[in-house]
């Protein structure tokens, strides 16, 4: 007999994407309000208060949970905006809040003691000591682990803590420890931690220069892409740069995370939930990825194996990596 099954946590940037994710077999969907309180504050995305209430109704009607991410760090003097987001999410019957700021966790734990709290990856809690701080201080029930750990390290953490862990298995990959990066802020003035945006489109330009496509961010050249190469969005840490030693993708290639092959290992490491990144992605993508992982997890629960990579042939041709889960990545 299998023990408890692993929960599949899927992104939704819009109500339409949420319905698609629910229908495709998500166990839980995460989303955020249409403002600076969530870390995917992109134009045209996210939920109004009314949309969140309706979306939660839709998900609950189909046995799916909704987790609301309020995972930027409140601006000094305007903490009320973030507290209102917490109150409204609780009032909308969200199944859990995903938070990172110590002050906001304190507020949520005090004001809404019955509400389930998850620690956002933005809190970058990568050790048992840090995790125990959040569980003991605020009763956090689940920690989303930062993408800096190997599978063996994750197993070690799980044996040393008494809360659930959630790990990213697919989608965009932060090369830097999340919640501890102000590269975007340095180039554009817009910060992931404060404004919920990284490499914001408002500061992106594209120019065709000869045979090359040249994306710039805040005036800084992020890449020069030859005609024959695919072009990725100019996320700062995934650009080509030059040092005296070498030039190229100094930090990371424009690859996305695919830990599909590691699912059994992650299950064995004691992980409670698997998270798919991509609240900025469209319905078609969400549907394809969620269905593929649903099949893979169902098969795993029945002791079968499936070729997840084949299921995930998304025709994008983008290269993928196992990121920090494989020690060689470091």
């Amino acid at each position, binding site marked *: 007999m299998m023990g408890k099954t692993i929960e599949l946590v899927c992104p939704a940037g819009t109500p339409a994407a949420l319905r698609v994710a629910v229908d495709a077999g998500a166990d839980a969907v995460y989303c955020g309000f249409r403002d600076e309180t969530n870390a995917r504050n992109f134009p045209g995305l996210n939920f109004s208060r009314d949309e969140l209430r309706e979306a939660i109704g839709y998900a609950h009607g189909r046995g799916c949970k909704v987790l609301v991410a309020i995972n930027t760090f409140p601006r000094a003097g305007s903490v009320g905006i973030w507290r209102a987001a917490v109150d409204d999410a609780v009032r909308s019957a969200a199944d859990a809040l995903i938070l990172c700021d110590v002050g906001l966790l304190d507020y949520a734990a005090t004001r809404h003691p019955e509400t389930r709290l998850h620690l956002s990856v933005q809190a970058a809690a990568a050790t048992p000591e840090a995790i125990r701080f959040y569980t003991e201080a605020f009763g956090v029930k689940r920690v989303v682990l930062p993408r800096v750990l190997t599978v063996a390290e994750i197993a070690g953490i799980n044996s040393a803590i008494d809360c659930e862990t959630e790990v990213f298995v697919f989608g965009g990959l932060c090369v830097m420890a999340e919640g*501890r990066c102000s590269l975007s802020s340095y180039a554009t003035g817009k910060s992931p931690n404060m404004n919920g945006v990284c490499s914001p489109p408002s500061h992106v330009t594209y120019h065709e220069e000869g045979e090359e496509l040249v994306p710039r961010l805040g005036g800084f050249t992020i890449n020069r892409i030859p005609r024959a190469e695919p072009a990725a969005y100019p996320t700062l840490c995934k650009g080509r740069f030059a040092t005296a030693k070498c030039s190229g993708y100094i930090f990371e290639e424009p690859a996305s995370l695919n830990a599909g092959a590691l699912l059994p290992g992650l299950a064995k490491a004691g992980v409670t939930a698997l998270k798919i990144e991509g609240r900025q992605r469209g319905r078609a993508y969400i549907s394809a990825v969620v269905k593929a992982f649903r099949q893979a997890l169902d098969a795993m629960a029945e002791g079968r194996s499936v070729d997840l990579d084949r299921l995930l042939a998304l025709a994008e041709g983008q290269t993928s990596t196992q990121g920090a889960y494989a020690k060689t990545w470091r």
Partner: protein
Amino acid sequence: MRPQVGITLGPVLFNWQPDAWRDFYARIADEAPVDTVCLGEVVCSKRMPFFAELMGEAIERLERAGKSVVLSTLAMPTLSRERRLMKDLVAGFDRVIEANDMSILAQLAGRPHMIGPFINAYNETTLAYMARRGATSICLPPELPLGSIQTIAAAAEGVAVEVFAWGRSPLAISARCYHARVHGLTKDACQFVCGEDPDGLDVDTLDGQAFLTINGVQTLARSYTCLIGDVPQLLEAGITGLRLSPHTCDMVAVSRLYRDVADGRCEPQAAMEKLRLALPEVTFSNGFLHGVAGVALTGS
């Protein structure tokens, strides 16, 4: 009457040779008008053994010169060896500790301590929570704008509030070592190549724009944060300390200029000009403070 402002020398973020490290702190002890000196390795635990045996001597000399010595901890301990090391440091060090990561902060509850710039304390409620647990001082995250600094300082009740006022601003930390990566090495067999770049390794864009600096697992700005021209506004905002981050430039001269401006003996703009003349190859920035791109320099 100007409020008294403290000057803190932050930890050396780079991998300096042991001799250079020892000479640096000897000179700081003897000549620099700084009140507090943070010692300790923040970026990479592999560098620690090189100056571990020099620590005692440096602490003694700095304290003899009347400086408060603070121990800064690793910004991202993950390996069990690093976690043990941090635990031992916290238990064995009888002076003030500056926490740079939540796992260390967790161990300091109930004991007076400092919050380092690598901990996310972006607002007054977070600082209030940390103060209740024993934080007595904080160096705010470098990307905070003046408005936030002012709000936090006004609400800080007894917690000293310091800003990152000089040097390449730390921007990111990773599990991956970029120094090893650009040298074609692995992190575990890095040959300590970061030691070749005592102010970090320059990263340019493909169009030759000076952009970033890498320092092992850390990424910093290329420009030097320079808030010397903003000191009057910072004092008005209620900050109690200015943090200078060590570089290979003459840090004694830099700290004297900051001291003079803070004490009203030198006009901020005149001090800025002196720094420009002394460091013609360095680009200055203060954009974070002014709520624009960090790389920008405004108001001078």
